[in-house]
């Protein structure tokens, strides 16, 4: 099992009797860029939290790099949805990213921590903004800061939750270009409802709506998505040839 970043087997999660995830079984190979797509309320964020060990599944087993999620947390860089943040919060870009280097109580950030932060800010193209207040940045810039905060942990896997929500379309492309660079070095799991962009940049696609269906070939997915959801799906591709496909499927 050394080739896998994530192994989920029969994982089910429910809150107050409402089922969120049902019998999720899938394995994610190392150094694959997986896009998980699904409607709002389909359990995408919950899936990420299960992988991070923030939510205990009702049943099933979760392995991350062969260990329990909590044990493997230090190998994971997490980029949460950015709406969960107060734009007036008094903190600079540098200090935000530095939090990613947190290593335990009763310590302090070292010179190496600060160097790593400076390097990663360079990588994501945010060096010139390091002394700005995070809340003063644009959505796309904040997202880069949050990616940097995940990357300074020098993770083996990156988990991204709806990273393009609240970012203008112009910024999408450069953001995904950044992820394309990163996928050379690590496993990436991205959850989104932005199906079009996912189809261009990712290796594999999984569809999630309580249940998860894994597609190793993303092309096959495009025509299947509508059926998997059982609801109308709008597809917008951002490739070299822009295209638009409207699928309308009913399933009992």
């Amino acid at each position, binding site marked *: 099992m050394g080739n896998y970043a994530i192994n989920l087997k029969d994982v089910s999660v429910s809150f107050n009797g409402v089922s969120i995830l049902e019998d999720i079984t899938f394995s994610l190979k190392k150094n694959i860029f997986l896009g998980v797509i699904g409607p709002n309320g389909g359990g995408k964020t919950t899936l990420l939290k299960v992988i991070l060990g923030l939510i205990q599944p009702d049943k099933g087993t979760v392995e991350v790099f062969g260990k329990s999620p909590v044990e493997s947390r230090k190998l994971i860089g997490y980029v*949460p949805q950015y709406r969960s943040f107060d734009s*007036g919060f*008094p903190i600079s870009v540098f200090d935000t990213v530095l*939090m990613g280097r947190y290593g335990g109580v009763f310590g302090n950030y070292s010179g190496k921590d600060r160097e790593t932060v400076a390097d990663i800010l360079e990588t994501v193209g945010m060096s010139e903004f390091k002394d700005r207040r995070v809340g003063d940045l644009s959505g796309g810039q904040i997202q880069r800061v949050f990616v940097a905060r995940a990357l300074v942990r020098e993770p083996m896997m990156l988990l991204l939750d709806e990273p393009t929500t609240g970012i203008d379309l112009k910024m999408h492309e450069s953001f995904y270009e950044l992820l394309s660079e990163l996928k050379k070095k690590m496993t990436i799991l991205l959850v989104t409802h932005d199906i079009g962009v996912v189809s261009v940049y990712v290796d594999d696609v999984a569809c999630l709506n309580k249940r998860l269906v894994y597609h190793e070939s993303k092309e096959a997915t495009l025509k299947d998505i509508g059926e998997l959801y059982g609801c109308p799906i709008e597809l917008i591709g951002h490739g070299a040839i822009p295209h638009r496909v409207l699928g309308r499927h009913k399933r009992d």
Partner: protein
Amino acid sequence: MGPYRIVCWGGINVIEILQYEFMKNALIASVLVSVACGIVGTYVVINRIVFISGGISHAAFGGIGLGYLLGVNPILAAVPFCIASALGIGLISERTDVSEDAAIGVLWSLGMAAGILFIGLSPGYAPNLFSYLFGSILAVSSFDLVMMFFLDIIIIVTVFVFFREFLALSFDKEFSMVVGVPARKLYLLLLCLVALSVVVLIKVVGVMLVMALLTIPAVISRQFTYNLKKLMFLSTITGAIFTVMGLWLSYLYNLASGATIVLVLGASFVLSSLMAKTR
């Protein structure tokens, strides 16, 4: 003209009134209060837990009443009440289906009710009751000062030790847990610090007005810096200046001290907002 103006302002001789014990105590209390406000108030504002601090301060009234009934120092008796209500609000909203604002409302009114009942059961008349509701900085005793001093020390040391953790969990609790911050426990610790600062503040502004001192200095200062350490420092200075100013005005015009301090803070907030806007 120069030296005379410093010594004699508003027709009162500064040197002379500082010879009064109660005035000296009141000035020291202003500074001690500002330290708690500056540091903990900053966390209260950035965590948006102003109404948790309100709940804790009103619940403290139960402790004050119990203190009266048992014949111990009411402020001392308020300490366990404040801590218990802080932990109560934190744990109830985390572990049960009861939302945070409901937990606040319940403890807020329960504390006040218990206080009124206890005071009613106490023999004789409780003449200082009003001062615990609305504060009386001129009645601060030396014992109160010593207690406020030690509570300030506890607050400063705790924040010094857990500065990175408090910042991380205030900014993004979930992420802080992922990187290994024991966020749930430390959030409860932060609420305990709020409880302790409420205790520091009760004597000066009373349970009804505590919220003003915990929020206004930090809200004013927040317009001028986004570095957390500077923000705490600036809030402390702001708090000290306006508390002393309020104290001064209340002395000059024979007004209720707690209310005057709060109104001075409120006016400064309006002025500073206008200043920040026109910058």
